[in-house]
């Protein structure tokens, strides 16, 4: 009885083992086949793009033949894995090139399959598929789908929203500042950085009237975004906008303003505004950072300003001021201040 029971258990275990082997074997074969197939797709894609970009004399680019090649490689709607792989290859290629060739690739990709694969992703209910579709559309410059993207710019999901906003910037450039600062949802730091980078990469020529329109927005991400744009494009004429936020009641907005102002040097009138605003900043650390910036950025030592600081209330600020004065050779003032802290009576006490 017991022995036959053990046999049954043994058989079941053996069965499980063999099943596992079969699964492993199948997966190995499948992977090998899949990798080989991917390599084939990559290789023919590389051939086609390079031939399209640099056609040798006597050669001809035949679009119908290209379509036939891709179909032969299994790039069909019924095989989404292959389609996705091809799209990834297209994006990778387009991201590595600029200038004339970028435009040429755009034209090529419009004419070969997969047609509308990215657009159909927008209808998906999953956010990651949707975001991926949007990214594919803007990376490949398919401007004809822009209307489908505009409605996603206020999507509830951060990632979908972000991709849609980047798409706006990619397609519309400075025009997109018409509504980016007026969006309903907030814009994260990462989103802002992405937007600024894309704007700088694709539209290096600043459009000041459109930028100034964005000044009207009172949303916090909008002013941060605008300040970052001013910094990235080194718009000397717009420094006053950043200066405005130096003594803003909100800590984070001040932080961004301080970060951005450090890329600029202040002219005379701006220095006056700066000094006035400096005393209104409620955070000591921010004041210390600004003081360092002010010192490295001015040619002359503004003794009056520093003396005023030496006599202000905050100890940490006094220390930084003394440090700056000492390093710039005004040792006497620092010494005078130091001894001035003790009146004559306490000194006498100490000596005695």
């Amino acid at each position, binding site marked *: 009885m017991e022995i036959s029971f053990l046999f049954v258990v043994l058989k079941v275990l053996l069965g499980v083992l063999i099943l596992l082997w079969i699964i492993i074997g199948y997966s190995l074969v499948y992977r090998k086949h899949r990798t080989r197939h991917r390599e084939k797709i*990559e*290789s023919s*894609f*590389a*051939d086609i*793009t*390079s*031939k399209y*970009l*640099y*056609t*040798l004399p006597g050669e001809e680019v035949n679009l119908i033949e290209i379509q036939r090649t891709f179909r032969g490689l299994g790039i069909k709607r019924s095989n989404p894995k292959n389609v996705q792989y091809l799209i990834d*290859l297209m994006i*990778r*290629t387009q*991201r*590595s*090139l*600029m*200038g*004339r*060739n*970028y435009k040429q690739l755009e034209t090529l990709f419009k004419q070969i399959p997969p047609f509308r694969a990215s657009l159909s992703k927008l209808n998906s209910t999953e956010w990651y598929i949707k975001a991926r579709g949007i990214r594919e559309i803007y990376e490949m410059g398919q401007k004809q789908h822009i209307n489908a993207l505009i409605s996603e710019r206020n999507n509830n999901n951060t990632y979908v929203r972000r991709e849609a906003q980047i798409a706006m910037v990619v397609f519309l450039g400075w025009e997109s500042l018409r509504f980016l600062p007026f969006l309903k949802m907030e814009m994260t730091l990462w989103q802002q950085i992405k937007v600024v980078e894309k704007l700088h990469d694709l539209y290096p020529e600043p459009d000041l009237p459109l930028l100034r329109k964005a000044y009207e927005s009172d949303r916090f991400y909008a002013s941060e975004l605008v300040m970052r744009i001013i910094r990235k494009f080194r718009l000397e004429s717009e420094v006053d906008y950043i200066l405005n936020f130096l003594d803003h009641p909100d800590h984070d907005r001040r932080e961004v303003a301080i970060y951005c102002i450090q890329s600029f040097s202040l002219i005379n009138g701006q220095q006056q505004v700066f000094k006035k605003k400096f005393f209104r900043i409620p955070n000591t650390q921010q004041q210390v950072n600004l003081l360092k910036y002010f010192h490295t950025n001015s040619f002359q030592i503004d003794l009056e300003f520093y003396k005023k600081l030496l006599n202000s209330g905050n100890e940490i600020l006094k220390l930084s001021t003394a440090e700056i004065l000492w390093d710039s050779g005004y040792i006497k003032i620092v010494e005078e201040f130091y001894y001035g802290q003790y009146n004559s009576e306490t000194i006498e006490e100490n000596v005695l």
Partner: protein
Amino acid sequence: MFKTALIIQEDLILLRILERLMRTHGYSCRSIRTLAELNIEDQERVYDLIISDILFEGIAPLDFVFQIGEIIMHKSLIVVTNMGQEKVRQQISKSRNVAGFFSIPFDLDDIQKLIA
């Protein structure tokens, strides 16, 4: 008489595009994706131009470029890579052995100007 070029590039698509670019400019090309594909003949001939990627072969990016320059005889060397951090760019452009440094995204027309 063909001019000769050696292209070392890990990215297959870029490799093919560069190869085509060189061929349209009258070069005969040898293109490889890894250093393992180099053979003894490559060390015996003098290439007019080497276009090299920065590959991770266990040494620092800068050393890699210099080693390529030392192993293979050549007249001019261009670096095309997708590892183009600012630090690497600065270091490489300091050296006089490298004629050009391109990191993605780059404009192929700029390379064309260099080889024309």
